[in-house]
């Protein structure tokens, strides 16, 4: 298709009028996106939310403008060049094949746009991924179907997330069972909670209030309830003024010590191992033990050995502490933990197990044959 065969074409006045109209519409749409009251629908609770919204405004404005031009031209060409009733059946359109100049520009324009967008995105992304030092480190853990949180120097996991206004936060997220996701729309941030993996992001809360946390990764039957709408486990993050945060933190720290003291006290007592519920034990095993122990044979080691047949394995009659493999001795290890050359197992308090939990776990381990 040699280009010199193409007729020379001129765009008529009508085309430029339509182009001008589309240009005005595009400008209005850009203006709209720059001023759109996003925050009245969705507050920006952290510094990164403002940056991400700025990027969104840029994307939405340029996307809408482009869309207006493309749809406008489609509509205009379809109407203006429509075959009229009187047009002969064999009439043909203007036989042009190519226009190097035009094609050069419309390849260059999106290229430039992509470069700008990439730089814009990179700058914001860099701020989210790279954490500065001395931040408050909080850990969020997904469960079917609720969230728990760990704070520095606070024993165990707490069910509420509080953050101090104006303090940089590093958030680590992970999961105890399946993949969940941790999304706070008001923060415009999200990370999947993947079992065995820790995902991290960094932000600084800038607006006081209570914001909902939503799971966006399919996580089982109650996935749709894993957000603040649920009455069972409402999922919120509270952004408090520093003083209120400090008092919440102090109170929580105290309560959690008591919680673990209670477990500690209980653990010195003898346990009655009858009447454990293996099914509850199985759930606990998945949540608390399975990161280090498989429910498979002894040799299937993750951190510790596989626990199938732990109570009934002629090849391994003794437990790691040298005691005979009896239910009582297994319960003892669950209470006291274990520290040895091959590794370390947390004790009852660190694992957050009640006495009943231990009874249930032992009952479950008995069923693993």
């Amino acid at each position, binding site marked *: 298709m040699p280009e010199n065969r193409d007729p020379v074409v001129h765009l008529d006045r009508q085309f430029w009028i339509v182009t001008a109209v589309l240009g005005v519409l595009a400008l209005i749409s850009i203006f709209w996106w720059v001023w759109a009251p996003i925050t009245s629908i969705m507050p920006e609770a952290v510094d990164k939310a403002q940056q991400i919204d700025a990027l969104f405004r840029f994307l939405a404005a340029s996307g809408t403008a482009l869309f207006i031009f493309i749809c406008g031209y489609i509509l205009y060409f379809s109407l203006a060049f429509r075959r009229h009733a009187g047009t002969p059946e064999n009439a043909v359109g203007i036989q042009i094949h190519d226009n190097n100049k035009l094609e050069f520009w419309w390849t260059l324009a999106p290229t430039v746009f992509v470069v700008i967008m990439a730089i814009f995105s990179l700058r914001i*992304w860099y701020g989210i991924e790279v954490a500065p030092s001395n931040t408050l480190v909080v850990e969020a853990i997904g469960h079917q179907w609720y969230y728990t949180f760990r704070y520095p120097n606070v024993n165990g996991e707490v069910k509420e997330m509080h953050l101090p206004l104006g303090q940089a936060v590093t958030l680590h997220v992970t999961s105890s069972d399946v993949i969940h996701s941790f999304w706070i729309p008001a923060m415009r941030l999200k990370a999947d909670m*993947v079992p065995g993996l820790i995902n991290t992001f960094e932000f600084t809360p800038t607006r006081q209030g209570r914001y909902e946390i939503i799971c966006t990764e399919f996580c089982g039957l109650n996935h749709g309830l894993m957000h603040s709408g649920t009455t069972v486990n409402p999922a919120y993050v509270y952004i408090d003024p520093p003083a209120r945060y400090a008092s919440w933190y102090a109170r929580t720290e105290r309560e959690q010590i008591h919680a673990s003291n209670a477990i500690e006290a209980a653990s010195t007592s003898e346990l009655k191992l009858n009447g454990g519920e293996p099914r509850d034990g199985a759930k606990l095993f998945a949540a608390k033990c399975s990161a280090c122990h498989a429910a498979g044979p002894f040799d299937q080691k993750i951190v510790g050995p596989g626990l199938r047949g732990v109570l009934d394995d002629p090849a391994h009659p003794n437990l790691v502490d040298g005691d005979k493999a009896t239910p009582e001795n297994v319960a003892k290890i669950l209470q006291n933990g274990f520290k040895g050359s091959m590794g370390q197992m947390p004790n009852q308090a660190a694992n957050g197990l009640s006495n009943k939990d231990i009874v249930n776990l032992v009952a479950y381990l008995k069923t693993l044959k």
Partner: protein
Amino acid sequence: MTAVAAHAGGGLADHIHPEPQGFIRKYVFSIDHKIIGIQYMITAFLFMILGGMLAELIRVQLMKASGGLMTPETYNEVYSVHGSTMVWLVIIPLLTGGFGNLIFPVQIGARDVAFPWLNMLSFWLFPPAGLMLYASFLMGAPTAGWTEYPPMSLNAYGAHDGTSMWAAAIFLIGVSSTMTGINFLVTILKMRAPGMTFTRMPLFVWGQFVTAPLLMIATTALGAALAALFVQRQFGVAFFDPTRGGSPLLWQHMFWFYSHPAVYIMILPAFGMISEILPTFSRKPIFGYKMIAFSSCAIAILGFMVWAHHMFTSGLAPALQLPFMVLTMLIAIPTGVKIFSWVTTLWGGVIHMTTAMLFAIGFLATFTLGGITGVFLAAVPFDLHAHGTYFIVAHLHYVLVGGSLMGILAGLFYWYPKMSGRLMNEKLGKWAFWLFFIGFNGTFLPMHWLGMWGQPRRVAVYDPQFQAWNQVASWFSFVMTAALILVLFNALWSMRNGKRSGPNPWNARTLEWQIPSPMPYYNFKHVPSVFAAPYDFAEPLPYRGLEEELT
């Protein structure tokens, strides 16, 4: 001239087998690419009815924030099988095995594909695979979506036994796809008519040509992933189970290494269809032929290097997010060039507003919107907000329904005469188009803001504040379904009652229109030779040797 004659000789003619006469050999176990193409289409449209019914179950469930139609367990099965059906049993088979088989061998002047028996085998793996997928309902269908991310696809976490059946079914359809890819690639490379150089190939052939390697290469990765999932589920090998040292992210990488190229498997042939229909009904050469062809190649190559943009929130190393983001954004360039070229093709044309043309123009508008939101999602910071929400649902339906399915419907109205010798009813067709266009946009447009405001995908119940817009989406989805029923009715009705089309009702210029409708067993009495690209509407046809085709 002698060189051309030598090239045209022996080789192609040697492939001639006598036309089978029995019903079984002619219509069931046929090796004729046209019959196989029609078989693919009929099967895929049947599965589309099933998948569409599942879609409506989803929309009825979501009419109320508290659900109510189904338990969450059933709902999870329904959307998982809906997604799997539409991707693997509808869109991919229609675009490759269906329209691909039916049209592209004729467009390159071949009498069949390179491996007709392999083609038959490809097809005959497809219905059993589909039945297996639906049989999984009997043992508890898969629940973790069409992506089936572990650990949710493992029984220990609540998956059903049918998930293994799902893996086996998709594996089978993957084998079928791979064979189709090999077949089409060899056919296009080796069986073009004399003079049919690469820059004279119709753009639908280009679409199939760049899709075939994707089918071949990417699908094997899916096969490996599915095999691993199957072995994990049935024999306990812990590929993906984190509690036993496996990695759930491994599945995501393997799955998307296939499924992102699969997105292009599902759109490049539709690009090809649009590139045929727009010039034909504008009576104009396609604008920027070479740019359209080469941009397809660019999209296919880039398509292999961007899979992890589905995993921006999954826990990708930061150093990996960067290249995946930038490469994904780069795809906007060839795609943009295509869209600009198509719109420019309309300019200065003599536009015949047939139903096929309406669907093609509708494709331009809706696919553009889906493409633009795709670029948004490439920007990691924006994806951190939108990932896993209804914004994604909106985006993917804009490209798969507003793109692929619109293309398929345009192609159906355009090429229907080549299958049946009759035209589909234009009046019904135009009604169907407008109902479809309105219903589609009404269904999926609100999902953009639903997602931005906080509705996650794959939920059986949701926050009551989103109920109003969900109801809007559901009501419009009924309109869309009505339109699709109208199209299917039209196709059935026109088989007997449609106007006779003659060989070339649209005055189109590619080779399939130069032979009778429906197309005869051997396509061409004499293999034609080609001396120019097919889109010069003011010129005589660029073929020699077609004089006896219509006699």
